[in-house]
């Protein structure tokens, strides 16, 4: 290995990667896919790819960040494949689920109007809030969670996310809207409830 040319960070011994980063990589994948076997496979693929790519590590990021970067690409590839094999079944009822939140007999007003979350950003500093935030994302139906992860966490552009998920943009918007409505509801019920005026 060429050690002298990397003045920045160095990679640790690959044999220690699994012990050092295995759980973190697994958690990252599992949270986004919600499938244990697939998340395990992705950890394996990521570490193999990292092994093969380690000469190219430029030392600009930490080892963990570098590995997560590889995992992200694997994750998007995996979603693309899995969606091709099993198209989005959850789309069908989504529109009517949204409709149900509004009162068609009363000009489509909110049945349960969103409350005023006084000073919400304070929550971001609290550990307990993140626990609930994660639980709310985990409570989303799988496909909504995957769409939400792709667009909001991995930062894919809408069009790119649609290609990965194999859906039309209008469908993505509906799914994202539904996911946001659910998250809003969940956070209001479990976090902002007490503080709501």
């Amino acid at each position: 290995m060429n050690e002298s040319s990397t003045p920045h960070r160095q990679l640790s011994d690959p044999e220690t990667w699994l012990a050092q980063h295995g759980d973190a990589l697994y958690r990252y994948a599992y949270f986004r896919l919600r499938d244990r076997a697939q998340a395990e496979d992705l950890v394996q693929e990521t570490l193999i790819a990292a092994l093969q790519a380690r000469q190219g590590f430029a030392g600009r990021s930490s080892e963990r960040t570098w590995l997560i970067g590889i995992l992200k690409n694997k994750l998007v590839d995996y979603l693309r494949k899995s969606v091709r094999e099993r198209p989005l079944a959850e789309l069908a009822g989504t529109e009517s689920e949204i409709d149900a939140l509004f009162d068609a007999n009363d000009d489509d007003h909110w049945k349960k109007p969103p409350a005023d979350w006084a000073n919400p950003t304070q929550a971001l500093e609290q550990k307990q809030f993140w626990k609930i935030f994660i639980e709310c994302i985990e409570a989303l139906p799988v496909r909504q969670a995957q769409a939400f992860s792709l667009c909001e966490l991995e930062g894919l552009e809408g069009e790119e996310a649609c290609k990965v998920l194999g859906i039309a943009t209008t469908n993505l918007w509906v799914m994202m809207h539904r996911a946001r409505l659910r998250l809003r509801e969940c956070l209001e019920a479990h976090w902002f409830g007490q503080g709501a005026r």
Partner: protein
Amino acid sequence: MLTCKQTARLVSMSYDKRLSWRERLGVRLHLLACDACRNFTRQMRFLREATQRFAREQPETDNRVRLAPEAIERIARVLERHGQGTG
């Protein structure tokens, strides 16, 4: 005048694409008159902020979520095979 249902959809959509000026105007007019949708709009802003923070800092998700011992063993074996070729 837009309904709450239409307004909520456009506000949400504004995070996925750029709204037309007509849509933006419709939303703004509705928000002037509607507390619930104003709250919703603020909540969406907060949700985006929280999500971006989450994506950036990756606060530990549930620590109890760990690789199963069998998986660790299996992956270790596979890595060993791959390591022999390159290492």
